[in-house]
């Protein structure tokens, strides 16, 4: 049973477009939703995160839209650049007890110039 599901294994967009990566979850106790970015040969790195009390979190070109009622969220990457090509992991946790972070299976994003 996959508690955090990322709907696309891969996504290709053109440079300058907005990439939208979708994620859904099952556990209503999840309270904190970080997104991690991973480049080939490296470990994942925290990109942006949102708490369930918010419906939107913005950081530069990256925005999370969160829908608590529908138990889904999405990561929007505005004006996508080739350097954004990476694997993006949606994750979720109850917000306390760091060990309970659950990761989705990841979406590999390719931004074509």
């Amino acid at each position: 049973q996959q508690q955090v599901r990322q709907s696309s294994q891969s996504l290709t967009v053109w440079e300058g477009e907005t990439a939208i990566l979708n994620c859904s979850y099952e556990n209503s106790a999840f309270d904190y939703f970080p997104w991690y970015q991973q480049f080939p040969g490296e470990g994942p790195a925290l990109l942006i995160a949102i708490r369930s009390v918010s419906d939107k979190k913005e950081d530069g070109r990256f925005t999370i839209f969160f829908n608590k009622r529908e138990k889904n969220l999405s990561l929007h990457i505005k004006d996508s650049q080739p350097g954004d090509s990476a694997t993006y992991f949606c994750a979720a946790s109850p917000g306390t007890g760091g060990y309970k972070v659950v990761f989705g299976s990841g979406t590999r994003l390719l931004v074509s110039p």
Partner: protein
Amino acid sequence: EAAVTQSPRNKVAVTGGKVTLSCNQTNNHNNMYWYRQDTGHGLRLIHYSYGAGSTEKGDIPDGYKASRPSQENFSLILELATPSQTSVYFCASGEGSNSDYTFGSGTRLLVI
């Protein structure tokens, strides 16, 4: 600069052999984690630790042991390596309720 360092970066092991993957963190985080990453499965938690001397089973602990001899060091031990344990292994450290992890660069393990 705070960091998580894994060694070795690459490892080839023979089936039935013992493998030890090492992780060192300078973040002064209490919590440390071992994950494996496989295509289609994302990151799966093997073992974790709340501090020196503590180890806990994650979601897929079978075939693995862990050791946390100090705040800084956390090892993953494969006593009898099998080809199914061929994977990329990541160590991470974290603290507090935000659950923000710092990951190492990974160890690519091939068991033949």
